[in-house]
């Protein structure tokens, strides 16, 4: 049952965050998708490049 629960926990959390939702879990923290816009950067050769946009997951532990 524990394995099944862990699997369900993972799927539920992944599904909600992938949909762009911020999920708060008491005692643990908040999982929040963050969009990083396309932005300029320098590559290894020192040339300017436009980095692709990216979504990442920001975790804020409870109490902060």
């Amino acid at each position, binding site marked *: 049952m524990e394995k099944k629960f862990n699997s369900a926990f993972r799927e539920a959390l*992944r599904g909600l965050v992938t949909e762009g939702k*911020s999920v708060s879990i008491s*005692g643990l923290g908040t999982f929040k998708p963050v969009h990083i816009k396309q932005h300029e950067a320098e590559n290894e050769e020192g040339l*300017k*490049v*436009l980095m692709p946009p990216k979504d*990442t*997951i920001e975790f804020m*532990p409870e109490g902060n």
Partner: protein
Amino acid sequence: MDKVSHTQFVENLASKLVLTEEETGKKLSELILTIKKESASGEIVIDGLGTFTTKNKELTFVPDESFELELNHNYAGMIPVLIEEPGSVPAAAVKKADDAADGETEPVDDSLTGIDSVDNTGDFEEEEFVDVIDEQDPFDLDDEDDAVTGKDTAASRSGEAGEHETMNEDAAEKVRKAALEAEEKKIKEEEASAQIAAMNIQPNWVEPEAETTPESKAATGSNEPKPDKKEIPAYDRTRPDSNTGTIIAILVAAIVVVAGALYLFGFLSGSPSDTITPVVSEQTVSPPAVTDEPEAGEVGEPDAALSEMEQLAEQEAARDVTAQPDTPAEEEAAPTPAELQVTGEPESTPATASFGLRGTMNTSFERPYTIVVHSLDSRTGAEQEAEGLSGDGFRSTFFRVELPNGSVRWRVAIGQFRSSNAAVEAATQLPEPYLTNHFISRIESYNP
């Protein structure tokens, strides 16, 4: 952003497990305790979710790679887009050219400027584009503007001459010699002078500010577009003699016929994609003809000089036909309206000619920058989205992207741009949701 509370999450979890919320809440609390306990002494990994660790008494979470991939499915397979290539110029210079090319400056009739013919000649790699800016910006509309408004400056004319004399110095010298010889012969022949005088067309050419009149058109004996009036003062400044003016008229007519023949030759012999090439080649040929005409105009019987010029023109045309289409055009002066009339109208229309956000996709532009607004796993869906955007007036397309894992995405894009900077700037004009949800990429292929 939607927020899911602890209670809502438990409800969601309970429905998946077919358990009561109380039971689910209890199990969730046990899992949380385990995570905290395990992470305090090291780390705990939940497959497919991520790794929890404690650093400085603070719980941290690093998402699993598969989780991040799922989250970034819209951007999968994207790689950094090079903005600046080696040897490039400051962004401000690129922006100036972008503005001109995007029509953000004054709208200019492309049939007069010939921008189409330049635009369509090849790839728009940043490096090539920068080279063009370095030497002579083909998108700098100053020359064309002058031509359209009828302005002409000695400085601009001498600038053109300087460039092309270096290209055809030897050939021009030959023409000059032939012209001088012929002139001496002609001066001795009084009959020829009388014949020229009988034509009675000198006033149209000797007046420094005179414009081309119907009589002068008649003198040319052709329905070809009239010689640009800005060419006339150049002859007059060098040779105010009335007889010479008449000869110049004849010579100009001959040059127009030759240029027309060259264009016809290029048009008939070229494939559809080559039809632009004769225009470019004649851009190269025509200016020397203009700059050399004062000397050639002294010739009473310009056949020898013309023959030389015809050979030169043919050589130039042959050279340009074999040239790479993306050869930088730095040595080519922007064509004058008269040249364009001789060489013909550009094929593309203004709606498809320039870059920009709206209009119709010009599939002749190779690897232009664009603004991707959708990334879908269905070709049909992408096609529908692109059609919808086209219906809204956007220049839209969709293209196929194969991801490293073998899967395929269909991306819907708006606009065609010469540079990433132009695309970024244009993206600020998009409506929501595209305004805040887009990325810049390049179109590798059109509507597969």
